[in-house]
C-alpha cells in the first residue's frame, strides 16, 4: 500500500513552474529522498505534501485520504525543518511536547511518548534546557524528537542535516536511517547532497527544473542513469560525458584520432563513463594527464583525450605526473549511451 501518492501535481507562480506535473508514490515504511540541485522544486514538492503551499493542479493522497485541500494540521504528518524551527523560549521538553499539548493529548500518554522519544534520542539530560543552550546536533535531535512524539503516519524532512558539520552529518545520517527502519516510519527526505541520498534512501527521485528526471532505487540510479543530468549528478567525481566525432569514417572521441569507439555507429550520441570504470592500459585512447588530485584511498587524474576531458580514479597514490601520456580503456559494459540532442538514455552496450 502506498502511504503517499502525488497525481500530476503542479505548483506555478505566474510563469515560473516550481513543480511541474509531478507524480509518484511512497510505499508504507520506506524512505524516499527527493534529490536535486537548488531550485529544482524538491523543497516545494515537500511543502506541497505538508500543505504549507497549495497546489495549482493535481491531487495529493496520504494513506486513503485525499488531502489536497486539507490544512497542514489535518494531514497527520510531522516535519523537521532545515532550521529546526524550535521555539527559542520553550525548554526542550516543552518543544517536544508542543504538538501534543496543542492537541490536548492526555498527560499520561504525553509522558509515555516523551520518555520513549527521549530514550531513543539520548536527550534525557537536556530536557530543561532551552534551544539556545544546545549544540547544532542536539537541536537537530530535539527537532527529531518533536517529529517522533507526533507518531504521525508520515514524516517529512527538509534538508535536516545541512546546518551540521561533516562528521556530525555522517553520524546523524546513520541515526535517522536506523530510526526510520526500526520504527518503520514512512519518510520523505529532501536533500541536495547525493551522498546523503544514496546512503539513506530506499528510493530516490531526482528532480530538475520542477520535473522528475528519474525515480529509481539508489543502485539503479547509479547503474542506469536516465539522462546525462542524472549520470552527472550521482557519483564523486561525476560521470564523464564524452562527445563523439565521425569525421574520418569511424566514430571517435571528439577531437581525437586514437579514441576509436566501437559501441556506437554514429556521432549522434554522448558516452557516459564513470571515472572509477576507466582503466589505464598499454594501448587504448591516448590521453594527456592535466591534473592529479590525491584523496587518500584513491587519486583522481584529470586527463584530456582529444577535445574531451576525462576523470580517472586510480587506487592509492598515483606515480603518474602531470603532462604524462597514458592510454585509457573502459570495458564496453560500463559505457552508458545517451542521445546527444535530448540527453536521454539509449542503453549500455550489452
Amino acid at each position, binding site marked *: 500500500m502506498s502511504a503517499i501518492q502525488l497525481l500530476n501535481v503542479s505548483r506555478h507562480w505566474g510563469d515560473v513552474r516550481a513543480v511541474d506535473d509531478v507524480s509518484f508514490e511512497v510505499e508504507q515504511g520506506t524512505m524516499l529522498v527527493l534529490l536535486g540541485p537548488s531550485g529544482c522544486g524538491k523543497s516545494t514538492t515537500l511543502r506541497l505534501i505538508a500543505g504549507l503551499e497549495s497546489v495549482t493542479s493535481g491531487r495529493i493522497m496520504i494513506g486513503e485520504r485525499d488531502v489536497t485541500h486539507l490544512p*497542514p494540521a489535518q494531514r497527520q504528518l510531522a*516535519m523537521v525543518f*532545515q532550521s529546526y*524551527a524550535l521555539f*527559542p523560549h520553550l525548554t526542550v521538553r516543552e518543544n517536544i511536547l*508542543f*504538538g501534543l499539548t496543542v492537541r490536548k493529548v492526555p498527560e499520561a500518554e504525553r509522558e509515555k511518548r516523551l520518555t520513549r522519544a527521549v530514550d531513543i534520542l539520548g536527550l534525557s539530560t537536556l530536557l530543561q534546557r532551552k534551544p539556545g543552550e544546545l549544540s547544532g546536533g542536539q537541536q537537530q535531535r530535539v527537532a527529531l524528537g518533536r517529529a517522533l512524539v507526533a507518531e504521525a503516519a508520515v514524516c517529512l524532512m527538509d534538508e535536516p542535516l545541512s546546518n551540521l558539520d561533516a562528521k556530525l552529518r555522517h553520524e546523524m545520517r546513520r541515526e535517522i536511517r536506523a530510526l526510520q527502519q526500526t520504527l518503520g516510519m514512512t519518510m520523505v527526505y529532501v536533500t541536495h547532497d547525493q551522498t546523503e541520498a544514496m546512503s539513506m534512501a530506499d528510493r530516490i527521485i531526482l528532480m530538475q527544473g520542477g520535473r522528475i528526471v528519474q525515480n529509481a532505487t539508489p543502485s539503479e540510479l547509479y547503474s542506469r542513469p536516465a539522462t546525462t543530468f542524472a549520470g552527472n549528478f550521482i557519483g564523486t567525481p561525476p560521470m564523464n560525458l564524452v562527445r563523439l566525432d565521425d569525421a574520418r569514417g569511424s566514430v571517435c572521441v571528439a577531437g581525437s584520432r586514437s579514441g576509436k569507439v566501437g559501441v556506437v555507429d554514429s556521432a549522434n550520441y554522448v558516452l557516459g563513463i564513470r571515472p572509477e570504470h576507466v582503466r589505464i592500459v598499454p594501448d587504448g585512447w591516448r590521453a594527456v594527464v592535466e591534473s592529479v588530485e590525491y584523496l587518500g584511498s584513491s587519486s583522481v587524474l584529470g586527463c584530456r583525450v582529444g577535445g574531451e576531458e576525462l576523470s580517472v580514479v586510480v587506487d592509492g597514490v598515483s606515480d603518474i605526473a602531470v603532462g604524462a601520456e597514458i592510454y585509457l580503456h573502459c570495458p564496453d559494459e560500463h559505457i552508458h549511451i545517451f542521445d546527444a540532442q535530448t540527453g536521454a538514455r539509449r542503453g549500455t552496450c550489452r
Partner: protein
Amino acid sequence: MPPAFRNPATMRTIHAWLLLLPALAFIAAFTHYPAVNTFIHSFFLDGRGGAPAQFVGLEHYQYLLEDEVFRKALVNNLLFASGTIPLSIGLAMTMAFLVNAGLAGQSVLRLCYFVPTVLPMIAVANIWLFFYTPEYGLLEQIRGALGLAGVNWLGSESTALPCVIAVAVWKDAGFFMIFYLAALQQIPPSLAEAAMLEGASRLYYYRRVVIPLLMPTTLFVLVNATINAFRMVDHLFVLTQGGPNNASSLLLYYIYEVSFKYWDTGYGAALTMVLLGFLALASIGQFGFLDRKVHYR
C-alpha cells in the same frame, strides 16, 4: 618612570579610565551635578530680592504632604500612566500584527500608523485641540449630527484627563509599533509553519509563541512608555494648561508651574526629587522583576 607605571596591569587600568573620561565628564556635568544640586536645593527656600537662600531642612517635603494640588497632580499622573501605558502598548502590538500580516497596501498602513510619531508634539496638540473644540470641533460636529447634547471635552473636569490620555496614546502607539514590527520580522516564518503543522490555531500561536518572543521588546517599550507618562508636559501647554481646576495637571506640569510661574524653585526641586523617585522605582521594578521573566535570544 615610577615603578607603578611599568606594571602593564596598572597601565591598562589607567588607559581604561582615560578612555572613559570624556563621556564621564559629560555625564557628570550634565546629569549628576544637576541632580545632586537639585537634591541640595530642595532643602532651601529662595531668598527674595537678592537675599541669600535660606536653609529650611525638610520643610518643603512636609509641605508636599499637605499640598492638595500636588496630590491631585500625582493621582492624575498615576491615572495617566495606567491609561496610556497599557493602551499604547496593546494598540502598538495589534497594529504591528496587522501591518506584518502581508495584507495588500500594508506599506501605506505602516506610514499612516507612524505619522503621528513624526509630527511635532505641539502640532499634534493643535490638531486634537480642533477635534475637542466645543460646538464646531470634529467630535462635536459628529455628536451634533447624531443629535447628542454638546460636551466641552477639555473644559470639563471629568473629560479633560481622558482626552489628554487619548492624544498621548495616539502619538505613542505608532512609535512603539515600529519596535514590535522589527521584532516580529526577526521571528523566522518556519516557527509559524511548525506550529501550524502541530495543529496550533492562529490564536494559540500568537499567545504561546509570538507574544512570549516579543517580551524583550515589550520590556523596552514598557520602560519607554513609563518614562513618557511621567515626562508628558508639551500637550498640556496647548490643550488644557492643567485645567480645569487642575483636573488634567500632571507632575511635570506642576513642577513647571511652581518653579517658573511662581518662582518657588526650592519647592520645585523637592517636587522633582519625588518625580525622580517614582521613575527610579519604576525602573527597578521593571528590570529587577520582569527581566527574569523575559527570554532573550
